[in-house]
């Protein structure tokens, strides 16, 4: 699992976050988050609304200073060296913040002045590919066209790090595909790095090679995507007698069901199958869990929202 390190030169690190915490009042938006993103990777960030994804991305952009812990982008502190760091980042958020009064071609000129490494040929090629009229006022563009323009603006200076915060929220499948293609082009082109957050797990699955899952400000999972998938199994259990209490299964992350039929999402290596049999249960099906099931399991397994049995089995 770990031996493959393709398309990546040495062990260069694009982003390093160490023990980052951030509170808003009494609420911990980020709680002791640590991870690194090697260059040339597509790092998928998942989590519910309010899990801390945008807060984390804003720290990477240097918009917020780390309360405790450190944030390094290309080895630099994005708060201390904003122009250097931002010049190497392309950023697109759910609501691209574009000047509505400008024309498309004016925006491209403006951005060229802003980014020393702006590639006008590339920008023009993308504009044509996205079917954007150069003479159109930005405020007259549809939501999908604005998203494409935002993507163009984030990409045309060939950033070493592309940061996408819920880029495909509320967009139609065609624009979503453009965004995914941009991600793939970014990593194939020059081995650049992408970090993107999404609640669309099949998008994450399609393009990411690394998965991080935030839940209530805490990093629940952070590993190569294949490893995450290999590590989680879904077991369908059937018990001889109906149960009023969920079965206690060692290695389970989430248990759901009723009566005789129960489903366990758990850790492949530590699920205790003999114990299930001793408990009067038989395994009807044992298959890899989907990312969706893994996500829901980890979300529900939170001590705050889950039943006490879940803490008991862990």
């Amino acid at each position, binding site marked *: 699992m770990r031996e*493959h390190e*393709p*398309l990546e030169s040495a062990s260069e690190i694009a982003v390093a976050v160490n023990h980052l915490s951030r509170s808003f009042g009494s609420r911990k938006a980020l709680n002791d988050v640590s991870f690194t993103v090697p260059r040339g990777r*597509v790092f998928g960030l998942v989590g519910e609304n309010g899990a801390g994804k945008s807060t984390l991305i804003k720290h990477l952009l240097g918009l917020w200073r780390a309360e405790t812990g450190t944030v390094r982008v290309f080895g630099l502190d994005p708060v201390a060296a904003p122009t250097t760091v931002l010049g190497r980042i392309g950023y697109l958020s759910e609501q691209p913040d574009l000047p509505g009064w400008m024309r498309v071609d004016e925006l491209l000129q403006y951005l060229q002045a802003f980014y020393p490494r702006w590639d006008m040929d590339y920008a023009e090629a993308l504009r044509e590919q996205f079917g954007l009229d150069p003479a159109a006022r930005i405020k007259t563009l549809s939501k999908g066209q604005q998203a494409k323009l935002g993507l163009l603006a984030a990409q045309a200076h060939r950033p070493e790090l592309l940061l996408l915060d819920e880029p495909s929220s509320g967009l139609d499948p065609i624009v979503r*595909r453009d965004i*995914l*293609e941009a991600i*793939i*082009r970014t*990593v*194939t082109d020059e081995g650049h790095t992408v970090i993107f957050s999404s609640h669309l*797990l*099949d*998008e994450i*699955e*399609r*393009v*990411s*090679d690394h998965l991080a899952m935030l839940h209530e400000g805490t990093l629940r999972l952070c590993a190569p*995507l*294949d490893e995450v*998938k*290999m590590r989680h199994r*879904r077991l369908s259990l059937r018990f001889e007698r109906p149960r009023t209490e969920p079965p206690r299964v060692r290695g389970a992350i989430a248990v759901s069901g009723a009566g005789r039929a129960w489903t366990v999402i758990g850790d492949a290596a530590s699920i205790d199958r003999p114990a299930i049999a001793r408990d009067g249960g038989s395994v009807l099906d044992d*298959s*890899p*869990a*989907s*990312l*969706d099931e893994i996500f829901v399991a980890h979300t529900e397994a939170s001590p705050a929202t889950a039943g006490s049995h879940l803490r008991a089995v862990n």
Partner: protein
Amino acid sequence: MTPIRLNPSSGTPLYLQLLEHLKHSIETGAIRAGEQLPSVRKMAEDLVINPNTVVRAYRDLERDGIVVLKHGSGVFVRGSVVPRTDLMKKAEPILRSAVDRLESLDLTEEEIRRLMENELALRRTAKQTRKRRA
């Protein structure tokens, strides 16, 4: 090559889905011996999947001796890979002559089928025992 359909939301990792698809295409002769597979970059961009996913699938094909990686020029299906359909064609006359000889011993169809299944089951057990020892 037939269009590749990957299902990201299934439990099977994408690289395995891609690997199975390519193996199947090569075995059925949809991709011929000596043919070049699309570059990692092209495959990743066409399928809109992570290039590392393609690299992993190609590496497994290489490990299984199905393709060769030629540095700087690409990934090629090995000349020695015989499409499964061709193999099946070769198998037909062998089986025909075996069944002819069994029939000449006055065995019934049912008996021949049982003998065949018996033989296959014995071989399967022997294989599993060997694997377990290894």
